[in-house]
């Protein structure tokens, strides 16, 4: 198999061929080579949830649990309602008994739409809302103006909700995944410092602060310092 330079920018036809080749490799129990192909597609500028999902499967098959969670999480960010992605992400996390952040009910609501969808819907509501404002101001008929103001209200609510969802996704940009087994989270950023808790591989944490080779992370409700090379950012 001739692997190409990662910098190569595939055209869509070639990308499809690469996907099929990667699938064949995966089904032939050659997950490392399949992973490499998927990673090349991503490096070439393709940011598709299907590629990330398949990459997650390939990484999982090759025993890279943490990096599989990174790929599944990335796929989930792009297509949060996809049941297959949700299933595999949950299965991978549960397999490693890893920690994943708990969500409040309204955060789970925001996570039903991707950041891109929320942005698109929000701006659509923004345009509709301002168009309705123009109608409400310019139209002389009272009933039409009444309806227009209601549309303004509805569009405003949608736009605000979508803006909140986008902000939520932006906040999740700080998410990282532990990609090395059993990482000790310490009270202070020193190698010999006392261990506060241990994070299994595949745990999803939030980066709070970076200090040299150390990062302060929050895993669900606990905070501690771990080495920066033990985690990988979900958003790359």
């Amino acid at each position: 198999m001739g692997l190409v330079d990662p910098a190569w920018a595939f055209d869509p036809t070639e990308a499809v061929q690469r996907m099929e080749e990667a699938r064949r490799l995966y089904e032939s129990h050659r997950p490392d080579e399949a992973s490499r192909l998927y990673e090349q597609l991503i490096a070439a500028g393709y940011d598709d949830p299907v590629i990330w999902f398949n990459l997650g499967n390939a990484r999982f098959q090759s025993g890279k649990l943490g990096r599989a969670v990174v790929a599944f999480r990335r796929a989930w960010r792009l297509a949060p309602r996809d049941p297959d992605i949700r299933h595999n992400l949950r299965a991978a996390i549960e397999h490693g008994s890893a920690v994943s952040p708990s969500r409040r009910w309204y955060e789970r609501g925001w996570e039903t739409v991707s950041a891109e969808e929320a942005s698109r819907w929000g701006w659509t509501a923004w345009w509709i809302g301002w168009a309705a404002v123009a109608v409400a101001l310019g139209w002389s008929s009272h009933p039409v103006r009444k309806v227009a103001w209601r549309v303004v209200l509805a569009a405003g609510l949608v736009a605000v909700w979508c803006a909140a969802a986008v902000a939520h996704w932006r906040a999740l940009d700080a998410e990282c995944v532990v990609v090395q087994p059993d990482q000790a989270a310490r009270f202070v950023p020193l190698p010999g410092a006392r261990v506060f808790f241990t994070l299994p591989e595949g745990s999803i944490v939030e980066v709070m602060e970076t200090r040299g080779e150390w990062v302060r992370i929050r895993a669900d409700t606990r905070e501690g310092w771990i080495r920066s090379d033990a985690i990988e950012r979900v958003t790359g």
Partner: protein
Amino acid sequence: MRTIWIRRAWLGVWLSATAWCAEPSVEFDVQPRAAAVGETVTAILTVRELPNPPVPDLPVPEGFQLMGMQPQQTVNIVNGALQQAVSFRFLLRAEREGRYTIGPFRYKIGSKSFDLPGVQVDIVAASGAATPTAAHAIARLRISKPTVYVHEQFQLAVDLLYRGVELDRQVELAGLPESGLKLDGFMELPARREVVDGQVYEVRVFQSTARALASGEITLEPILRVRAIVGRRGRRGGDPWSELFENFFRDTPWDQTERRVVELRAAPVVLTVRPLPAEGRPESFSGAVGACTWDVDVHPTEVTVGEPITITMVIRGDANLDVVQPPKLDLGPGFRTYDIRSVPPGGSSAPARERVFEQVVIPRDETVREIPALSFSYFDPEQGVYRTLTRGPFPLVVRPATNTASVVVRSTGTSQGMVVTEGVELRHLKATPSQFRRATPRTSGLGRHWVHVVPVLAAGLVGLWARRRDRRLHDPVWARRLRAAKRAQNILQQLERSLKRGEVGPFYERLWKGWTEYFSDRFNLAEGEADPSHILAAMGPNVDDHVRQQLEELYRACLDVRFAGAQPSPEQMSAQLDAFRSLVRWCEQRRVR
């Protein structure tokens, strides 16, 4: 016409072919099986799947008189299959009271013969001749077994017997214990007749499958609440239309019938419930009480290490299958086992009395040679003993794994295949999308979103326009002021053209018109008020002297030409045009009023 005959011929060929293919069957019955002297009972012999059967030779007992025979043919198409039947209905009038048996007899169809059983019929004396004190409605409880084991199923039937009284169809059942007894829901069986104390009763039967949940004695004393129709208000007569009318308005404010609720208490029946014996209870007993069968299927039997094997277990029988727990399988350390799951029935055609359990197991290494024998135990209430059914062992061929254990499992519950990798079920790879999503660089701040300011600006402009429109509608002074400037521009252009042409008369006519229109609109004056005194008053106190002078001179010049016949030179006309332009400019630049 020809088409109709062709269709009939095809139908005939089809019927004959269907009849030739199907196996004929014969049934015999008598209804009702209880009657009074003088009443008629019907003996029905039904021949299925055989066209044109011969008329049977029915043996008529001594106490009956054959009144006639009515053949009847029925054809049904069920699920595309043709079903035909011919019934011979013999009308027999009861002549004498007593217990009679109609049949048995042999019915011959060509070379085949069918032995039909006899049917017992009770004939009583005509109504009123015997036991006039017999009750008109009775409730009766029947149970299929007086003594049962805990969780053993038995039939419980409540009969409603009535004669000489009209009852509503609605029946309420009460009085059964609310705990300790589980009833599956009552179902009404076909109505029949029965002789009780020498009287013929109509019988409605309500039956349920029951199960006792605890040992001990349970006294069953159900109560039936029925509504007896005791009379009709303003009855219109006994014709079918009146019946239809009454049924239509039943239970409505227009219902003409009078009803009375009657409570019928059945004679108590004691049910003895025995506990399941502790002795001889096998380890594989999981709560099944009742005769069961057990089938086990293992698939596939040739696998690679890490590949899943599905063990499907089917339990069938007349037992308490809804509470039966799946048998615990001890397959040893050679297998990784998943949780056992109950498979829902696969459609309406599946038998109702069965439970299906599935367990997925994965051989850990190639040394595994078989799935050991599996056992299932149930309690046989008829014999009072536990019985154990054993299936297997099931030989396996397990090949060593070539790489990481991973395999695609097709699951009926999901649209996508499942991959079992290291014991984790993952959804399989997704198909390549027709169009890939490309990464988009994220811009900070407004960035590429500046375009979204457009609707805000557009709405603002619309708002300003609307405000201007509304002010024009509601503020005539302001509207005239706006109009004045436009008119002045127009008049000045016309004056320049007249000056170039040297038209004195039209020049001053236009100048006067422009004067009047501009100053009246500009200062909200009536057209007759556009003279220097009103204009200066409207301009206010801060008016320059040269403006005042220009205003008065221009006004006077217009009057001179229009009314005194003055003939100004072109230079004077040009100077007056400049003066008018200067006045307009001064008024527009100075925000006077």
